Each structure stands twice: as C-alpha cells, then as structure tokens.
C-alpha cells in the first residue's frame, strides 16, 4: 500500500508539473503573437518612413530653387527689398506713416498742456477783476455775472477743447481712419450682408 502511494506520489508530481506547463503555455503563445505583431508594426513604420522620404524628395524637386525662380520670373515678379524698406527701430517705423508730419510734432511744450484745460473761465474772469479797481461803481455788480457764467460753462456745454497742434494731429488721424463716408459704407455693406444672409 505504502509502495503504491509512493509510486502515485511520483506520478502526481509529474502530473502537477504537466498541468502547470499546460496552463503557462498560452502565456508563451501570447508573448510570441505580440512579438510578431510588433515586428509587423515596425516593418510598417519603416515602409511609411521610406514613403515619406520618397514624397519629401518629390516635393523638394517640385519646389526646387530653380522652379521657384522660374515661377517668380513668369508670374510673381518679386524683387529684393531696397534699403529704405528695412526698419531698424520703432522710431523709423513711426516716420514711415503717410501722415504729413506736423511741424514740431515731437516737441510738445508743457505750455500746451496748460492750454488744453477745459476751463476757459479764469482768463475771462481775470480781465473783469482787473478792471474792477478802475471803475468804482462796478465792484458790487461785477462778481455776479462772473459766477453765473462759471456755472454755465461747467454745467451745460461740453468743455470746448483748445485747438492745439496735438489735437489737430489726432483729428487728422481720426479723419483718415474713420471718415463719415467710410463708416456709412461699412454700415451699408453690413446691412447688405445681413439681408443676404436672411434671404438664404
């Protein structure tokens, strides 16, 4: 009995190993399959790269310097930019604008800044005050109209800007950019487009 069991034990071990080997076999199969798949993909990548090279070469031939030169001579007619078309800095860029350069555009004196102030009153009030000592009858009446005028200027009319050079320049730019007729054109075009879109 003991002998038989011992013999069976040997067979059992062999069987055990066999069972495990069989269980592991699919794993090895799977590895082999994946590996060959990878090899295939590698080959595909190589083929694609070859193809890309080929197409690149074709593109290079079609866009060769000679060809571009010929197209330029026949159709485009571009020529090398001249020295005046190169700008070294912002200052040069600013001087390129088509605006007529106002005299002394860059030297904005601080005096001009003072003149921009919307309150035109002090200048008008001062003469009144200055005249006061001359006319002895006036002192009582004179401050009153001045006060009224002050109120009127500050409340009703928008502050009238003093026409300075800077202002002139700005106006010129505005006129060039958005003239009345340009705006009207734009509006008309927009309306036409909108109508078209609705019509569709």
């Amino acid at each position: 009995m003991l002998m038989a069991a011992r013999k069976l034990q040997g067979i059992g071990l062999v069987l055990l190993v066999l069972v495990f080997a069989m269980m592991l076999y699919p794993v090895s199969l799977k590895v082999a399959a994946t590996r060959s798949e990878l090899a295939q993909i590698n080959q595909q990548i190589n083929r694609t790269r070859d193809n890309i090279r080929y197409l690149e070469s074709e593109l290079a031939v079609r866009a060769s310097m000679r060809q571009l030169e010929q197209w330029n001579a026949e159709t485009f007619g571009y020529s090398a930019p001249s020295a005046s078309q190169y700008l070294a800095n912002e200052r040069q860029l600013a001087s390129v604008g088509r605006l007529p350069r106002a005299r002394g555009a860059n030297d904005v004196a601080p005096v001009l800044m003072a003149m921009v102030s919307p309150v035109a009153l002090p200048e008008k009030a001062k003469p009144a005050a200055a005249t006061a000592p001359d006319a002895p009858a006036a002192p009582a009446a004179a401050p009153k109209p001045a006060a009224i005028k002050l109120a009127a200027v500050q409340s009703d009319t928008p502050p009238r800007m003093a026409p300075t050079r800077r202002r002139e320049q700005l106006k010129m730019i505005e006129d060039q950019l958005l003239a009345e007729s340009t705006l009207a054109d734009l509006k008309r075009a927009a309306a036409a487009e909108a109508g078209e879109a609705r019509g569709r």
Partner: protein
Amino acid sequence: MNTLVVRPTRVRTAGVRQQLLLTAQQRLMILMLLFTAAIFFVSLRLLYFAAFDTTPQRGAAAAFVPARADIVDRNGVPLARTIDGYSIRVVPSKLLNNRAYLADELVKIFPDTPREEFLAKLTGPRATYIRRRALPDQVAAVNAIGEIGFDFPREKERLYPQLSLAAHTLGFINAEGQGVTGIEGAYDKRLTDAATRGQPLALSIDARVQGVLESELGSAVTNLEAIGGAGIILDVHTGEVLAMSSLPTFNPNKLTGSDPATRRNAVTYNLYELGSTFKPLTVAAAIDAGTVTSMARRYDATQPLAIAGFRIRDSHPAGRWYNVPETLIHSSNIVTAQIADELGREKMEAMFRSVDFDKRPGIELKERAFPLWPKNWGRLTTMTTGYGHGIAVTPLHLASAYAALVNGGIYRPATMLKLGDKAPPQGRRVFKASTSARMRQLLRLIVSDGTGKQAEAPGFRVGGKTGSAEKPGIGGYNRTSVVATFAAAFPMDNPRYVVIAMIDQPKGNAYSSGQRTAGWTAAPVVKKVVMRAGPMLGVFPDESRDVDVSELTPLLWRNGEAE
C-alpha cells in the same frame, strides 16, 4: 529468398556470451544518453528563444540607414539623397505581344528615344533596362500596355532634388554608385561607411544663397554671351563657402548626353590671370612692408612705363600723377607696377606664398588646380604680377586672399563643411590689422568713387575691386577677349562675406552699355547678389552706416577743385 548460413561450431562458452551482452547494453546506454543530451540541448535552446530572445527583427533597423548618406545644406535642405527609384526592364523571352507594336507604344511614352533603339532592346537575347530612372507616371503608362514581359524593379538611386543647383560642388556618382567628383567624390567613404551614413553630411552651402548667385551669374553670362562664369561667396571669419557656382553647369540627375566640359568646376579647377583684382594685395603688401607710408604720396602715371622691352600702360591714361587711393580708384597699372617694383621681388613672392598662391586652393574637393607660378622671376615679373598678370590662380585663391585682406589680416583655408558650433580654424596672420583696416577704406572708395560704382548696393556698404584681364592667346594678349572679375566684400564697416563674380569673355552689348570691362559686367552681378542674398546672410541694409573714409576723400582729385 532464404539465406543459408552455416552455423558456427559452438566454441564460445556462456561466460563469453554474457560479456557480449554486457557490451551491447553498455553501447546502447551511451547512445541513449547522447540522444537525451541532444534533446536536452535542443529544448534548452528553444526555451531560450522563447524567453530571452531580444535580437532585432529582420530588417527592422537596416531600412533606416540609407545606402548612401544624404547631403544637406547648412539649414538642412536636402541637396542629394538616395531613394527607391523605379526602373523599367524588359525580358524578351517572356514577351507576348508583337514587338513592333510594343516599340510604337514605348516611343509614345518616351518620345526622346528613337524607335529603333526600343526595337533592338525588345528583340535582343538578354533582359535589359529600357529606363534606369523612370518617373512614376511613365512606369504607370508602361504598365498600362499590359505586357508581362516588362517588369519594374525598384532600385536605389541618387536623386539631386535641387536639379542643377550646386552641381559642381555636389558632383555626381557613377553607375556603380561610387562618387566621382565634388563632395560625392571627396567624401565617398564617409557617405558609404555603414557607421556614418545614417547621419546626413551638412555642407556650409546655403541653398537659397546658392540659388541667388547662380541665377544672377547665369543671367549675366547669358545676356553678355560669355563662354562661362564663376562665383563664390565666402565667410571671411570662418572660411565657410556659402555658395559656389560655375557656369556652364549640368544636371547631375541626367548625366548622359551632357557635355563633359560643363562638369569642370571653374572656381577650383580653372586658372585665370585675374588682373587688377591683385592690385589691393600689392598695395596691402607695400603698406605692410612699409614701402608705402603715406596715402598722399604721388607717383608718375603720365607716360607708359618701359621696362625690359615691355611697355606697361593704363587702359584709360589720365596723363597725371596719382596718389595711392587714386591708383586703386582709377586702376592704374603704371603706378601699381612702380609700387611693386619698390616693394621688391622677395616681399612680393613672400606675400603671394603667404596667401597660398603657390599651392592648390585649400578646400576639401578633389578638383583643385595648381596655380601657374612664374618660372623665371625677374624685375618685370614682380611688376606684372603686381597688377595680376603673369600669375594664374583659381577664383577660390583670390576669394581666400580677399577674406584675409578684409577680416583683419588672418588667412584661413576655405571649407565646404558646416562648422556649426565648432570654433573656426586658427588661421595665420598675413597682413597687419592696421593694413586690413586701411584696405577696407580703399576698397570702399573704389565702389563709392571709382571703377566699381556699378556694384554700389545701397545700404550694404560694398567694397571691392574690378579686374578686366586680357586673356593670353597665341602671340601675346588678346585685346578683345577679357576675363572680367569683381572681388568684393560687404558690409565694409565690419566685413562678413567676400563675393567674387567672374565672367569669362563677356561681349560688350546693350546689356552692359557696350562695355566689356568688369565695372560694367561683373560689378552689377555682385550688386544684385548682395541685394538679394545679404538679408539671407544676416546683413541688413542700413543707409545710416558706412566705413569712415573721411581721411582719404581729400586726397581724391575731383574736377580740379581738390588736391
């Protein structure tokens, strides 16, 4: 059939039989062990393959490495590469259709080949190529004939995508795939070695600049009905060749049928007496040696210089005395000869040797000509070589010498390979830095006030020297055929590039206002090249800059008011 065997007489004893049985069993045992061992090894090997095999799959890495390395320009634009091209082959024994009909069809597809040639190939005994480098369209058309006797093997072929661009620099390969000329010939090993061919070979050439140089030089050569031309753009600080053009040119993709003479690289392989372009070198040597100390010193140019039975004369005699700047501006042979004479033979020779005029030009190409060095150097030779006659060098020699003249006096050999981040070669001093600075002023004056006015590209501060050398012919110099050269550098306030344009035998026609001198033929080429290629090379025009020539301008004689 029965075999009768006579039974041997029983002589053996039982002991002997036992012995025999034992040896038999022993042998069987050994055999079995051998088999077991073999099976064991085989299974072990199989197990190894299954578990640890990591050798690359067939053809995985090999496909990437081209059979011959690509050649690219300094910006990586491909100039030469190897691709799988199509070819068309015929196997006459397999042909099914009528051969005359097939020949007719082929002529329709390839009109440039005669019908007889096709018919001969179709009826021949062996399989032959109909086309080696066929276009895919042509292959499709031949395939559409529907003849099984044609096949279309794909072969590795060398393609030059830019066609004839830089053809002389690149060179070409023969049918066996070996490089013959140019870079293909000089770097054949590097391009085919398995270890290095994976990396493309980067040249110092810039394809755009090369295109500009070729187109401008080409149009000048065509319009002036010249027999050839040469052009080169050189970086003065590194010696890198940015563009090199030789005319007439060829298409390396299609060699058969082209004239072999067109394959000569005029820049490195043709020798010319480059004439007046040598004058700045002579003057620089004289300033360096101290024989010319003052720019204001005046020399007699009123009459031709008679020496050893030879008369040196000016092409436009002014009949007055010239100082040094005027000598260069008016390109006076007489005064340059005097300056050279004063300098003396030894120093003149030493200067020419220092800029390698006695060697082949320093460049990697194989096609390099050995200069024509004067055999007997006498006093007259010193004088004539001073203004570029009696010594013949290649345009590349001149370009390298001019680079040394303007870059502060350091001579470096030219190179075709991109330096990249590497430090430029050491070089050697051939002119003093102060001499170089003076020469920049003088060269600039020649363009702003002298014979080179046509080269004035506004804002680029071009400086240079014209040279119209009469070609030596039978029985002396030929007055009507000249080699017109313009050697220039820009921008002159800080020179970065040397440009040389040379036109071989231009005709004076309406294109050059009837002139055949360099000022009217080669100088405009330099102007156009600089204007187009300057911005590509990183030099932008600026009209507010220039080299300071105020100390020299009072020396110039203008309508008699100065002086």
